[in-house]
């Protein structure tokens, strides 16, 4: 693999960690978030600044993960107050609030961001394998959660919050848990990105990034871990694939996002289920 492929692979793995995290909040637990990039940003800034202060890589990543998870719990508290569309706009607001704060702080580098982040010292290939391992762990973790008691509780909350409460599911606790886990993963992804890019600016973590992560989840088929994996790989590679028409790549991206929601609203996972069902139906008939 050349340098280009290794970098691309690293970006895909970082995106997988982000998408798997958002899938826990939005897919499993049904709490829509339009501000996931803010958590990605909190993790990136925390890791970048602690690393520059001299913390070794594992501790810098860990501090990003923990701080982001804590911020996630605080933002998750809003999901106990507001629901559905109100929550979508609130989380969008959290994203803009994060950007607004970061831009105005001299200590965080303002518009220029944080540069000269220490090297990870593993070599490009080594770092790729490290990120790949973490992405695999995040995916496995999310599969375990999905099949655990907690996964059932998330499902109940996503399906019908009031009924879940009636069945004495502790709805607030599970919502906060989903936010804590999902945002902590975003924090980890942010830390990895800081080490990967070695330069972070506020715009890396804007509304468009939040939307990109949400589309990875929605195009994959909300809640389906494998669907999300596949769509993350496709959506990350797509702009690269369309480089030969680089001027049109965002147009194609927007149009495809629209087309998937318009013609296959259950995402790739739903599309696959449909095909399998039809195949079986044909088999039964004949």
């Amino acid at each position: 693999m050349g340098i280009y492929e290794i970098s691309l692979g690293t970006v895909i793995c970082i995106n997988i960690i982000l998408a798997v995290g958002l899938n826990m909040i939005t897919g499993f637990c049904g709490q829509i978030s339009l501000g996931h990039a803010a958590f990605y940003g909190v993790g990136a800034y925390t890791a970048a600044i602690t690393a520059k202060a001299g913390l070794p890589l594992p501790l810098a990543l860990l501090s990003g993960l923990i701080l982001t998870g804590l911020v996630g719990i605080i933002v998750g508290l809003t999901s106990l107050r507001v629901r559905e569309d109100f929550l979508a706009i609130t989380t969008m607001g959290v994203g803009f609030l994060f950007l607004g704060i970061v831009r105005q702080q001299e200590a965080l580098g303002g518009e220029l961001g944080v540069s000269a982040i220490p090297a990870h010292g593993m070599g490009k290939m080594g770092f790729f394998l490290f990120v790949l391992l973490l992405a695999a762990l995040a995916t496995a973790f999310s599969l375990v959660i999905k099949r655990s008691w907690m996964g059932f509780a998330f499902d109940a909350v996503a399906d019908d919050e009031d009924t879940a409460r009636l069945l004495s599911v502790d709805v607030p606790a599970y919502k906060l848990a989903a936010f804590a886990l999902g945002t902590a993963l975003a924090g980890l992804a942010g830390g990895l990105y800081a080490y990967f890019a070695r330069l972070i600016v506020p715009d890396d973590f804007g509304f468009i990034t939040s939307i990109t992560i949400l589309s990875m989840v929605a195009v994959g088929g909300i809640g389906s871990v494998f669907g999300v994996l596949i769509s993350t790989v496709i959506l990350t590679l797509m702009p690269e694939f369309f480089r030969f028409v680089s001027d049109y790549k965002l147009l194609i991206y927007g149009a495809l996002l629209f087309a998937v929601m318009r013609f296959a609203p259950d995402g790739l996972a739903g599309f696959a289920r449909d095909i399998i069902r039809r195949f079986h139906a044909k088999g039964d008939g004949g």
Partner: protein
Amino acid sequence: MLYLELFIQGLIYGSMYAIIAVGLTLVYGLLRILHVAHAGLFALGGYLGLLLTNATGSLILATPAAAAAVGFVGMIIYRLCYQPILDRPPYVPLIASIGLFIAMEEIYRLIFGPYGLTYLDPPLQSQITIVGINLRTAEVTMVVVSVFLLGALSYLSQKTRIGVAWRATVDDPQIAASYGVDAVKVRYLNFFIGSGLAAVGGIFVSLLSNLVEPTMGGVPSYKALAIIVLGGLGNVTGTLIASLVLGVIEAFGTIYVGDLLDRDAIAFAFLIFVLMLRPTGLFSGR
């Protein structure tokens, strides 16, 4: 004097927000869709208004023509994009709408270029002094036109047959339909009026800055989303009051907490603060 000046600046911004946000809240009230692509129609209004003004030399001719054209585009968007996915969970039309918005921005960039267009002979640029405060004619005109159009809208919905049908459909589509109201016609009307108003907003914003650019729809429309949530989603009066309140809060906020937060972050901090106190907005009947 400073207070009065800030207050008036706030009202000017507020009237701009109002004319954008009313269209959004109309769509939400009727269809429960967060219509992000509204921002694309706002920008389209700016482009058409500028091109027609430059071609004919008359802003007074160009504005209604652009508004009508954008109104029809809004109807087409409803028919082709939203109608088929209305019965899906709310994130489906939301993401479809975001995809559509990205594609629209790209189309403007590809057709009209990335750097934006300016008026050949910018209209309404003179200054007038009202109670000792210097204002630009464009600002005053914007406020007057907004008040006039929103007044006309209120008359339409209160005093005419079609307005009654409209309000009945918002209240309860099934009962309205059983009384012979054509719900589809009401939706078309809704999109026509909302999109036309957005176009007028786009024209005035382009007059204030003498610039239309592909991304001009972004920030005002994210704020418009915050405003319709503040106003209690779907509540037109609430939306109008929330627009003015947010305009004034921003004007004072940039002076007093501008070091901590930028203008957009102030708006969203206020949004989150209000939602924590009143989870369904300031003026919610629900």
